[in-house]
């Protein structure tokens, strides 16, 4: 009897520790209903130690039905594991927002309810072990239960934002795309900012709640142009955003295999992005992608003014050609600017120039502003690190096309360097093609770099496979495996010297294994 009580008591402690871990994951994954369970599975199967822990925990659960003492095995594992997922978090600690407090309360009620029920039914230890092991699932359940309430609360903010937009009545530029939307938004704000009062939504504010907040807090009365970045995880989301943001000008920068875990296929990504074009008076499309070229055709057919922009075709409405880091801008077949020394993706620059022209910014102003285009932080940003090492920071990128562009820049800048290093944890949220895309990236990386530093476990297997599949004679590449980003930077500091170039490609927050 005493043993049974102790088991239940210890289980509360164990659940509290597990709770703080998995609640943080829920927060980092935007409270999506199945996210915590998916991450739990990913973590418990990452590496032999965690796998052994999982086996031990399940064994304890099975055995404690007859021998209550075995529950301690499960509780101990749940309290300390999975190894690598820290309690507080390094990249983003748990923030006790109102939403998280609500979620934690609902989750704790579920845990206590189950535990009480089980104890009353005489199965205290078994219930204790089961509910402790099921913390991720119960956090997901709590997310599902609180979702309707959260939607209701969000609705009030959205209504306020919609009213504010109607009152201020700026010209609204909406930008979406699988990648490049944040950079393009920054370029638009920069090119237009000298001539009009511009407010751009902050980078991390690209969903319904974030854009409502940006409007409510940032859209001052005299705003003439509002640049809204719109992200999407599924069909209907951008339509919903456009129903109250009502863009005048829509931009699609690119379509690629991003968030495939949630979308399923690239065709569905395209459909979701194309929602931004409904009802706008002007569309800006990067037509180097055939699917976007087809969309341009459709837009033109239904009477929308279309800017076809390109990174290759000088006869597009706006074309920006990158000649080894030197950009040349063409507008309707005529050179508008040349000799621009910029590390910027030409397609994004072209889209921004088109938007500026559509907003009637004088061409001379555009040309002047182009020369001071800001580098987007962490998006292929070049800096000189300690000890004269050239650092290419592309830690915000997480898509195959962007990775390829970054490798090209590494090859160019590191042409004469003794060492060219790629540090990466690989890319995530690519669904069925994640393993394949990471392997391909690693193969391309070792063809360019002298060293490849693989960070963490999430994509380790795929990256290693890719690195070793590179054709013989591609170069004497070395592959180094480290557990965390700080370990990788230490390695870089210890091994690189003046003139060497290191590319940090993508960074995963520490709730990824």
């Amino acid at each position, binding site marked *: 009897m005493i043993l049974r009580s102790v088991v239940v008591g210890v289980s509360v402690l164990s659940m509290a520790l597990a709770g703080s871990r998995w609640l943080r994951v829920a927060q980092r994954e935007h409270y999506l209903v199945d996210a915590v369970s998916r991450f739990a599975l990913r973590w418990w199967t990452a590496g032999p130690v965690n796998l052994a822990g999982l086996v031990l925990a399940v064994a304890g659960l099975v055995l404690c039905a007859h021998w209550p003492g075995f529950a301690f095995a499960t509780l101990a594992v749940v309290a300390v594991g999975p190894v690598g997922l820290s309690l507080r978090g390094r990249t983003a600690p748990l923030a006790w927002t109102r939403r998280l407090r609500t979620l934690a309360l609902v989750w704790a009620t579920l845990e206590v309810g189950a535990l009480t029920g089980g104890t009353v039914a005489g199965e205290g230890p078994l219930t204790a072990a089961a509910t402790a092991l099921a913390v991720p699932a119960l956090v997901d359940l709590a997310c599902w239960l609180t979702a309707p309430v959260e939607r209701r609360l969000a609705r009030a903010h959205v209504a306020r934002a919609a009213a504010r937009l109607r009152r201020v009545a700026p010209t609204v530029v909406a930008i979406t795309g699988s990648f490049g939307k944040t950079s393009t938004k920054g370029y638009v704000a920069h090119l237009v900012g000298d*001539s*009009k009062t511009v407010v751009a939504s*902050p980078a991390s504010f690209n969903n319904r709640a974030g854009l409502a907040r940006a409007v409510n807090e940032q859209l001052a009365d005299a705003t003439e142009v509002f640049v809204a970045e719109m992200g999407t995880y599924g069909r209907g989301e951008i339509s919903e955003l456009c129903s109250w943001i009502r863009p005048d000008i829509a931009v699609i920068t690119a379509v690629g295999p991003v968030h495939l875990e949630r979308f399923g296929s690239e065709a569905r990504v395209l459909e979701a992005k194309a929602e931004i074009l409904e009802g706008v008076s002007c569309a800006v499309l990067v037509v180097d992608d055939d699917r976007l070229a087809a969309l341009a055709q459709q837009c033109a057919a239904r009477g929308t003014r279309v800017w076809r922009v390109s990174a290759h075709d000088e006869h597009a409405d706006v074309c920006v050609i990158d000649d080894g880091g030197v950009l040349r801008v063409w507008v309707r077949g005529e050179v508008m600017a040349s000799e621009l020394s910029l590390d910027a993706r030409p397609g994004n620059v072209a889209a921004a120039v088109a938007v500026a022209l559509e907003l009637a910014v004088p061409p001379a102003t555009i040309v002047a502003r182009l020369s001071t285009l800001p580098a987007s932080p962490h998006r292929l940003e070049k800096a000189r690190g300690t000890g004269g090492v050239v650092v290419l920071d592309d830690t915000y990128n997480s898509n195959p096309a962007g990775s390829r562009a970054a490798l090209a820049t590494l090859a160019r800048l590191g042409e004469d360097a003794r060492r060219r290093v790629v540090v990466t944890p690989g890319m995530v949220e690519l669904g069925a093609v994640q393993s394949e895309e990471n392997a391909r990236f690693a193969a391309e990386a070792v063809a360019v770099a002298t060293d490849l530093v693989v960070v963490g476990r999430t994509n380790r297997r795929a990256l290693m496979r890719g690195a070793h599949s590179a054709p013989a004679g591609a170069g004497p590449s070395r592959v180094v495996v480290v557990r965390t980003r700080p370990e990788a930077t230490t390695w870089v500091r210890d091994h690189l010297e003046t003139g060497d170039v290191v590319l940090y490609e993508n960074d995963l927050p520490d709730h990824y294994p």
Partner: protein
Amino acid sequence: MNVTSAKVAVAFGGPSPEHDVSILTGLQAARALSGAQRDVMGLYWTKTGDWYRVDASLEATDFVDGVPRGAQVLQLVTGGEGAGFVAGAGRLGRTRPLPVDAVVNCCHGGPGEDGTLQGALDLVGVPYTGPGMAAAALGMDKLAFAGLVQAAGLPTLPRALLDPGLHGRLGGGSPTRTDAIGFPAPYILKPRFGGSSIGVEVVADLDTALARLDVNPHLRAGAVIEPYREDLFDLNIAALTWPQLELSAVERPLRSTAAAEILGYADKYAGGEGMASAPRELPADLAPPLVARLRDAARAVLRLTDARGMARIDFLSDGESLFVNEVNTVPGSLARYLWVDPPIPFIDILDTLIGEALARPAARHSAAGADGSILRNAGGIAGKLA
């Protein structure tokens, strides 16, 4: 009311181009007050005009994404029993105003410095630091201010309204037509209403100036034009108006690059601590007679504008001549860094400002004279309309 026991609210932010630097000033003031164990709270005014109560110990980075975590939404209610900063709006039966004895106004530019906020607080009946509504409005109108100092016989550069209609009235012609303005090029172009160097431009001729009106959004609400003289440098002095008028040392701000033609916004604020960290010569190395003339002119400006609290008066000089340029009625960092001789701790400056706010409120509206005699003798309204 004792200064040290007063419940103080530090207001900062606001729908202004200087929203961000105002946050720096506000957080400095809040930190100094809480460091002296005063009863202090932060009042954050968003770019869209909403009010939030925030912790006095926040850092600037907490405001990067907008309203910081844990902020409590407030409403500014004027008139009646419930007037003030009201918390808990929406929760039934709990709409009492926060107890605030004085507002320390750290809002630069826009409605925090142009009289709007001052007028609202006058209606609420909460005392506040800094200028009253009329002085604030005057200080923010570069054209009206120039007219006032000129009329009083103080030395200023000529300053004229640059109105977009000028182009049409002049017709086509050579860009050297100066008679329309009254002084020759090059020119310096400034927003008529604005508290900082944001939007200020140097132009070579009148046509360029007129062209800039169309494209520079800061000039849209009105622009003034004055001669640009490369030989002039800035000289600033601060004034505390209570209990008696005190003047600070004279500062000569230094421009960060030779190419920068005017002291830019980046020069002033890029250091991260606001004006307090900008490069300067302090006290400026000037001939004593010039300093004496400057101090006299500063006193005259304060009398004319009725500025209150802490003001900074900016001059231009070539080392001999002196020109009044503008008055900042809510200066960056509340001009605390200018008080070097003798040094005055920031908390003492804040105490002085709060003491003045409590002792002599900026506005006391009066209805004396409206004694009803007009109403009694008025007769019917319909008769007046006939």
